């Protein structure tokens, strides 16, 4: 699973996801992509599950690019622990995704296969997303 090699600080504030994506809103590498339509935190496990679903449907053809990286640690308190006594320990990593952000790009497959593969990948993600393609690409 994806996670940073080293970080400056172990724990971060939760924060909120405001606004829409400023960059990464158009296709840069592949011919087809999956665009987020809602703000959400995507965990490293969800990214990996989506990547597996996409690559398995594409079988032996094509290429996949993952354009989000889980660089935010999320902490959690152990079960049956009273409140207080400080913040919990980091449990997993998430990527904060804003609406409009392209999360996955693929290439080297037919539009029908790409649409189906990205639909399977989208079902592993926690937000509504949309299939996008380059202008002029048949789909």
């Amino acid at each position, binding site marked *: 699973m994806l996670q940073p090699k080293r970080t400056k600080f172990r724990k971060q504030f939760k924060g909120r996801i405001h606004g829409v994506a400023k960059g990464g*809103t158009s296709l840069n590498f592949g011919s087809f992509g999956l665009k987020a339509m809602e703000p959400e935190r995507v965990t490293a496990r969800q990214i990996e599950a989506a990547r597996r679903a996409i690559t398995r449907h594409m079988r*032996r053809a094509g*290429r996949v690019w993952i354009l989000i990286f889980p660089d935010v640690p999320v902490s959690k308190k152990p079960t049956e622990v009273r409140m207080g006594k400080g913040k919990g320990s980091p449990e997993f990593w998430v990527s904060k995704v804003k609406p409009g952000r392209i999360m996955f790009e693929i290439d*080297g497959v037919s539009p029908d296969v790409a649409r189906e593969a990205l639909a399977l990948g989208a079902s592993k993600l926690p937000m509504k997303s949309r299939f996008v393609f380059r202008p002029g690409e048949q789909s």
Partner: protein
Amino acid sequence: MSNMTTIKVELRTQVGKSAARATRRLNRVPAVIYGNDIAAKSISLDSRELKKLVGGGSFLTSICLLKLGENTIRTIPCDIHFDPVHDFVTHVDFLHLRKDARVSVNVPIRFLNDQASPGIKRGGALNIVRHEIELNCTPENMPDHLDVDLTGLEIGDSVHVSSITLSADVKLTISDRDFTIATITTPVGMSEDAQNKANEEK
């Protein structure tokens, strides 16, 4: 050679964020014409007509004849702004063309005969390094797309810009090196799946 598109446009009297939003609410897209030492004109276009043109894929490599009242202005679309979430066009920039103008445009590449490539048939993936190439040409000789033939390419082979034949008047903006357009590689997904299977067997 380049497509000619005629678009009916209207002059906008008010400019700015608020007026642009009001224009969009009327199903029109705000746009601007500039260049050629002529004062910039704020205009608007029909959004449905523009959506069809942009969806065609060769809008940025076509000459647009903008019908503004009785006048016809010869332009080329040089920039489009999209809504980041819903991808509808929010603004278009048109560059006014002189008679003897030369323009730099990004021309899309189409890859043909991928099933005639033994490398792709054996499971190789077409890794596109550049989806567009920047060309310097006159608007009349501007190609709306460039074709690259993949026939006979094996895994490990690559296509360079020198393999594309351009007409005499069309020049590459990057002319100092023979850069790569695409390569045929072993698919990343296949090797990872094979690794996963191997790990599961262990």
